């Protein structure tokens, strides 16, 4: 929405680069929750031996050597560089390694990074691979203990692979200046493979432990390598392998054997659809579906219709009427559940600002004959967002509802609102300059507005009093009140509250409470199933089960 000034071109392009980087990694590993498990994005400035130097945003590693004085030894797991001591008659104490900032999250499913050999330096004794978090940074290891037992590497000078021991196995070709070596970790099978200049060299290690860090080790002066953790396109076609794993996981899910008694798919699915329709009060559709599939409806049709009516009111922003209807149809519910009432009232306050609530609109209730506008400012610009989700007709809503179940935002029951979207919709149809008063009703509103504002302030006071008795939801009220501070609340930092999509959570809370009070499930089985699956995926990620990366819940729901 916010148009950037032309004078900020440089900033824009910088932001562009930044967001590109983020996007690329997010695209590769969409199921990784970076708040919980950050992705490796550079080499660690702390988790390295002092012989190692970093530059270029900590992506370039070079070997500085040890001018630090005698007796210094590498003290990090460094890919068995010690072996070189035996093979080349050199001392491994020259070897040094660096780890990435974070371990590889299991939810990557398939993790991959590439290292370009900028210079092989004096001898080209470079190792690329993975290692577990090692010993204390401040402690020097004694004698022979030089590396961690979980350390895996592929060495440039002889092409051997080293797996937690000093003995190498013949693995692949040697590598040197100009080569791009890739290291891939399959977190489903717990295997590791390497690539050279885009060519898959085959699996190097099996049975990898969890939480390994990308690691490189260098040993002789002049060795310089650049890492690409995914910020740049890879030489190797990792997408191809990702697609394969995705297809494989999908197949595993599809072919997962079920016990016979749980295998009544048609029944289970019909039940899911039917209960979903009933839950959200799609009364006619539910009835039609029930007729076609012979599914019983556990709830009274009249009861569904009641809920449907209330939901429609909430989704239309007519909270006051919704509260009234609830009181009438479900006496005692709101009296018992103060929190719910408070949430509704808060929303009602927001809708007053929005100009949608009947108490503000007064006689013009329904929004069908008059132009609703904010009570705060006549010069305000109604948000010219497109017709919100609630404005769609019933038929269209139902066609897309499975889709809509993907996210909370879309979840909304597309309440059948026969009238055009209240509030903003009519004004957006007439072209008007920004900030110009709504000419046709300026006069009529002029006197009405004052009364409205007073009504609203009274309502606010009442609401505040109510909040004093509750312990939660203080922020909600503060946010709602903050709307009053702006002459154009739609354009304000708290303007998001005014978006019609915000009504949906309130609608859902009310609907659930009604259902619960009637002794029915407060959440529909299909949504319970989705949340359950989502939680299972989270748990899989925590339990280092990489397959969670490829169980694409939205895609499965879309099918």
């Amino acid at each position, binding site marked *: 929405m916010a148009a950037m000034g032309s004078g900020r071109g440089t900033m824009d392009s910088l932001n562009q680069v930044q967001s590109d980087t983020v996007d690329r990694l997010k695209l590769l590993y969409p199921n990784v929750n970076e708040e919980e498990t950050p992705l490796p994005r550079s080499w660690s400035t702390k988790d390295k031996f002092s012989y190692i130097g970093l530059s270029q945003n900590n992506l370039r590693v070079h070997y500085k050597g040890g001018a630090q004085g005698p007796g210094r030894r590498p003290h990090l797991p460094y890919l068995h560089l010690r072996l070189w001591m035996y093979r080349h008659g050199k001392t491994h104490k020259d070897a040094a390694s660096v780890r990435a900032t974070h371990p590889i999250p299991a939810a990557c499913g398939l993790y991959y990074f590439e290292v370009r050999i900028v210079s092989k330096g004096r001898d080209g004794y470079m190792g690329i691979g993975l290692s577990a978090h090692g010993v204390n940074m401040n402690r020097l290891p004694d004698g022979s203990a030089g590396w961690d037992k979980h350390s895996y590497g592929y060495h440039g000078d002889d092409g051997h692979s080293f797996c937690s021991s000093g003995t190498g196995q013949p693995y692949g*070709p040697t590598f040197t200046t100009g080569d791009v070596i890739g290291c891939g970790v399959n977190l489903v099978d717990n295997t590791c493979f390497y690539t050279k200049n*885009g060519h*898959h*060299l*085959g699996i190097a290690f099996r049975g990898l432990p969890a939480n390994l860090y990308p690691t490189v080790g260098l040993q002789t002066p002049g060795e310089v390598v650049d890492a690409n953790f995914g910020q740049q396109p890879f030489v190797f076609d990792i997408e191809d392998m990702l*697609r394969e794993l995705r297809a494989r996981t999908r197949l595993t899910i599809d072919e997962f054997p079920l016990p016979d008694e749980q295998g009544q798919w048609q029944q289970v699915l019909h039940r899911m659809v039917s209960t979903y329709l009933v839950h959200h009060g799609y009364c006619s559709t539910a009835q039609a579906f029930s007729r076609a599939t012979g599914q019983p409806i556990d709830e009274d049709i009249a009861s569904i219709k009641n809920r449907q009516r209330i939901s429609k009111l909430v989704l239309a922003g007519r909270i006051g009427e919704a509260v009234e209807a609830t009181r009438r149809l479900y006496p005692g519910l709101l009296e018992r559940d103060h929190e719910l009432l408070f949430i509704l009232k808060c929303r009602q306050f927001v809708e007053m600002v929005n100009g949608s609530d009947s108490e503000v609109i007064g006689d013009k209730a329904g929004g069908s004959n008059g132009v609703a506008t904010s009570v705060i400012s006549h010069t305000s610009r109604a948000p010219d967002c497109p017709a919100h989700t609630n404005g769609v007709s019933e038929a269209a809503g139902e066609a897309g509802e499975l889709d809509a179940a993907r996210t909370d935002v879309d979840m909304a029951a597309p309440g059948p609102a026969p009238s055009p979207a209240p509030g903003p919709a009519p004004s957006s149809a007439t072209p008007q300059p920004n900030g110009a008063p709504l000419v046709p009703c300026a006069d009529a509103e002029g006197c009405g507005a004052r009364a409205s504002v007073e009504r609203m302030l009274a309502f606010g006071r009442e609401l505040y009093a109510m909040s004093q008795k509750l312990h939660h939801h203080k922020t909600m009220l503060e946010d709602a009140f903050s709307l009053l501070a702006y002459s154009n609340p739609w354009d304000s930092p708290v303007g998001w509250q005014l978006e019609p999509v915000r009504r949906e959570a309130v609608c859902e809370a009310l609907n659930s409470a009604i259902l619960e009070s009637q002794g029915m499930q407060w959440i529909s089985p299909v949504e319970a199933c989705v949340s359950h699956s989502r939680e299972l995926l989270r748990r899989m990620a925590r339990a280092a089960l990489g397959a969670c990366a490829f169980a694409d819940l939205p895609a499965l729901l879309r099918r």
Partner: protein
Amino acid sequence: MQQLTVFMDIESSRSYIDELYSSDSAKIIEALVTLKNSVIGSNRQKSSVIQQGIVPRLLQLMLEDTDPNIRLEATITIGSLAKGTPENVAELVEQGTATALVELLKTAPLDTKLLEAALCALRNVFLHPPAPISALPSDMRLLMRLTQIAREGSPNARACVVRILSIWCGGPTEQEALCSAGACAAIAALLASRPASGPPLGRALPALDLLAAMCFKNANVSEIALNTRHGERSIPEMLSGLVSRDKPLAVALVAARCLTFMHRAGALPPDDTRVVFGALPCLARLCTKDMPEDIRATAAETLAYLAEVDTSLQRLAAISNHLMISLAEIVNCPSAAAKQGAFKCFASLGANDEDIRKRIIETHGLMVHVVNGMNNSESNVRLAAVRCLHSLSRSVQQLRTTFQDHGVWRPLMQLLSESPGMELLTVGSSTLCNLLLEFSPAKEPMLDQDCVLTGAVEMLCSLTRRPEAALRLNGIWALMNMAFQADQKVKQRILTTLGTEQMFRLLGDSDTRVIMKTLGLLRNLLSTRQHIDAIMSEYSPQVMQAVILVLEGSYPAEVKEQALCILGNIGDGEKAKDLIMANEDVLRKLVDYLAHPESKLQEAALFVAGNLVWRGEAGAAARQARLAELGVLRALKLLRARQDAQHLHDKVKTALAQFNEFS
């Protein structure tokens, strides 16, 4: 019992079979439907119906321009019969079914069920080898029609027509004909994928098979396929999408085969990304352990073909996805196809690069498998094993060590002595040449045993009599290698077995390489002093005749050089010297060659002269006098004076020094 059942079937079906010949079309159609239903899914019923001889009637009903429903039902019934046993299908073809169906294809209107049924039936017939290829003539109008169906027909019709053509396309004529009929465009249309999902397996696979069949060893068709597009994408682009990891294995394999064939036909260079990052990694992946055996077998064979000639592809394949280990496992698979594929692939990988050969040899237990492969009951496995051995035999190091350890020459000799096929004989004798190289330890045991020696020499000598130049070359080459530094007995054996007449015949061979190797053999035979004298005492007229023949004939310089070298060798013999000295003709030629513009001939002649004038030996003075008289001395002096013969000056000086009495 079986007989009785058949009889009863015939009896029970008599009534409706009779109706087939009725003139009432309603009755016919009823009978056809009954017949159709009775043969579906029952091979016994199919056999029975065919035996009753109603196929001609069905074909007649199919072709007659009567009720369209009758034609359709008759065609469907034929199609159902063609799904029977191989014998059933053979019988159907015998009775002209394939030809009749092709007739129907020419006339049946497009987009009709009749056409689709005919295509289905013909496909069923073609799926049984041997397919009646000749029933489908290379008629451009018909082919255009078929490719049109492949482009625009119903999904089923398209799949059928493409499958038929993929079996039909077996040679350059068919390839070209299909190509001009627009088959490439039809293939592209079939491969074109809808967004976000690949083409269904059923549709892509026959089209890929057809493409592979059309591109195989055909530069022109491959080039056209390379540039054929459907919508946004060209055929190679679609193929590189189809080789990816999420595609069904069979599809990926054939797509990689298509790219391979296009590369080998010259349409895609060896460094093309679609070859290097498309076909090659896909095939290497399909060779890995987790794949089904038949896929691995074909993948290994295709990879062998892909990397057969290009060293860079061989090197890449050798590091791709542990291919060596995969191939070693495939060799272990029970099926002949798998073993063959793996041996061929090893042969390709080791064709040029010594490091790769070393790695192949170091693959655990491989040599045992090669030796076993040469004893396999399947001839194609034996051939592939010998190919592998041949490729590895180019390595000096392997000859010295591993080959010796495994006694590979034994099974090889065995194979070659069992009247092998032409291909095996060529590869096997090439391998034998390598095994007989002087540094090869295999040579010793082969020459040690009398019986083996006899067998080997006879076999090689018989090769020199073959009409195929490649075999003659291998035979004489192997003999030459065998004679190198061999003992007297071996040399005698070679000479007597080959016979001087055959040697003269070989000196007149149309292939210069054969002549070179024959002269090489002579040189090797006439090496150490005792051998020279012994052999010359017996064969001097023939040898001298041979040398003169070459020196006088119109041969290239390198051949004449060989002949002069032989003379030089003879000149090294004690008594043999006299043979040259006695031949004035030869001596005059020597003078001529000393003044020859070709430097290597000068050098060779100098070598002869040097040997003849050598002072330390009996009769040297007489020889020097004779040579001086014939102008050799003068020729040498002239040679010393020549500016362009600087590099020979030392040798000339040495020779002249021998003449000191005369200079």
